[in-house]
């Protein structure tokens, strides 16, 4: 435990929080441009700091922030793996800085990267065509829903108004289906944490547009019945949608296309190590089977017979899901990562992700009720409150797992170490978990005590929302 005596982000003795920019001198500037008065505002009031002070402001703030370069980040389902730095250099190449309205001829390099990334993702997912336009995973889900809707509209009149989502699915699945105007049918999981075929049979019907599924699911369990599931959904006339959040467990061992999925999205952050940036930008490419390729968003990238790359509108395109072409720099990083790892590296990433999860689980004192799991597992905090466990783990210098979700496991600790942690780190992480498991209620309730901020009053924040410095006294 020596290793975690001093939490990494603890402020030095006596250090206070960083002042807000607005707590420095504010400058009020009168606007006097070469425009008529009635077209302009009167004043702008903003903080005024010179660059040296600003540099320190932001560096100090960075020091009050925990990233995966700071230490392990076993946030289940969020997949915080190491982000190779060379991909930043790739995305920052001067030739990558292009405007989206350039002509195709002036854009051959960008289109080449996009074409090759579409191709790589198709091979990895077992999909026939891939769009890169959705700017995040949830946007990918919505794109998939739009494609499903357009497909049903074209093939059987668009009466289907239901999307089935397992109860343990990501909240975005429900919200994306609802955004598309669908009624969401929540599918209760079986006792083994997997899809219950009887419940699925009961949920399917002539109104079923799609079933959205994550595999391995959020408990890390592979849906072994995926073949019969696909058959049942297809027999009912529905489409099978793959939420790619957990594809990082399967690289080189199984492909959604081979399992019978018709549509899928990739989370490039989770699977291809693009940095999450504290909440984006992400990218959520969507892959589809041949039958659905004509519905992909506009425009799509393809290579002409002459070898040039071109943008074209698929014949029955759903249109656009982003004003331009999505989050391009993120796509460059994903391409660079895949290209570097290749077949052997990608397969090894999944293998080590699964090994690391299983090894860490083996070291823990907390019970893990459901298995066999792959890249993540859900332990139960038992009599402890999982949220308190998380706060206490901060005192041991590590980021805690996802807590209280999925609800199938009481006081869930959803843990995903990823392949990029070493055995030594996993041992230390296990020590932190086990130390907390042995801590008493008082220690848990009091935590965290070694962090920049002590436990934050969420209730006060919600009852009295103060959302800008204008709201502060």
């Amino acid at each position, binding site marked *: 435990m020596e290793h975690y005596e001093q939490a990494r982000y603890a402020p030095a003795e006596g250090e206070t929080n960083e002042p807000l920019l607005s707590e420095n001198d504010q400058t009020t500037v009168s606007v006097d441009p070469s425009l008529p008065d009635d077209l302009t505002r009167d004043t702008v009031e903003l903080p005024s700091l010179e660059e040296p002070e600003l540099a320190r402001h932001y560096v100090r703030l960075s020091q009050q922030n925990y990233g995966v370069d700071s230490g392990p980040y076993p946030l289940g389902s969020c997949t915080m793996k190491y982000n190779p730095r060379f991909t930043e250099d790739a995305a920052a190449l001067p030739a990558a800085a292009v405007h989206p309205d350039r002509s195709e001829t002036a854009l051959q390099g960008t289109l080449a990267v996009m074409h090759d990334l579409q191709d790589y993702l198709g091979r990895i997912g077992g999909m026939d065509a891939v769009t890169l336009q959705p700017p995040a995973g949830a946007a990918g889900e919505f794109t998939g829903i739009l494609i499903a809707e357009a497909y049903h509209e074209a093939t059987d009149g668009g009466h289907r108004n239901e999307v089935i989502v397992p109860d343990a699915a990501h909240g975005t699945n429900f919200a994306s289906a609802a955004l598309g105007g669908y009624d969401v049918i929540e599918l209760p999981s079986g006792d083994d944490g997997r899809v219950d075929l009887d419940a699925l049979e009961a949920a399917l019907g002539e109104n079923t547009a799609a079933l959205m599924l994550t595999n391995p699911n959020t408990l890390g369990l592979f849906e072994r019945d995926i073949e019969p599931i696909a058959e049942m959904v297809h027999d009912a006339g529905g489409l099978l949608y793959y939420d790619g959040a957990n594809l990082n467990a399967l690289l080189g061992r199984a492909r959604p296309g081979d399992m019978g999925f018709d549509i899928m999205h990739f989370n490039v952050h989770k699977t291809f190590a693009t940095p999450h940036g504290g909440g984006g930008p992400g990218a959520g490419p969507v892959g589809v089977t041949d039958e659905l390729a004509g519905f992909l968003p506009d425009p799509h990238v393809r290579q002409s017979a002459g070898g040039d790359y071109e943008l074209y509108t698929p014949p029955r395109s759903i249109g656009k899901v982003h004003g331009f072409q999505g989050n391009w720099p993120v796509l460059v990083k994903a391409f660079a990562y895949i290209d570097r790892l290749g077949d052997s590296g990608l397969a090894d990433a999944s293998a080590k992700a699964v090994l690391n999860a299983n090894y860490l689980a083996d070291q823990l004192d907390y019970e893990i009720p459901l298995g066999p799991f792959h890249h993540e597992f859900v332990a139960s905090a038992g009599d402890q409150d999982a949220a308190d466990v998380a706060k206490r783990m901060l005192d041991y210098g590590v980021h805690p797992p996802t807590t*209280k979700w999925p609800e199938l496991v009481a006081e869930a600790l959803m843990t995903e170490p990823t392949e990029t942690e070493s055995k030594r780190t996993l041992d230390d992480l296990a020590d932190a978990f086990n130390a907390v498991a042995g801590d008493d209620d008082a220690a848990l309730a009091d935590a965290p005590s070694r962090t920049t901020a002590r436990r934050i009053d*969420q*209730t006060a924040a*919600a*009852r009295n929302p103060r959302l800008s410095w204008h709201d502060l006294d």
Partner: protein
Amino acid sequence: MSFDVPDDLQYLESHEWIDPATGRVGISEFAQDELGDVVFVELPSVGDALDQHDELGVVESIKAVSDLYAPVSGEVTAVNDALTNEPELVNEAPFGDGWLVEIDFDSDDLEATLDSDDYRAQIA
């Protein structure tokens, strides 16, 4: 932990209570404890007509959202405006200052509600 379940009120399985004498409606002490700190309450307007088991509003804690259901049919005659600025009243006095609405109702509807013994058994 045992919760107060006043005998003079009627209840729904979904934890709303109604005072048969006044038509006043709220949520039970058990329900507010399950929810945790209430941070926001969304209620209907005076004059709204409700059917029994219609959605009456929403009560939110930090991490959960719960629908409220009308224990009886009728017209909303009063709304507890104090909850706008003090949603914590639902936690502090669920049977008192933390009431939600008052409904002008038909007493026949009460047959479909639980009495205090039944409700106590439900939350035991």
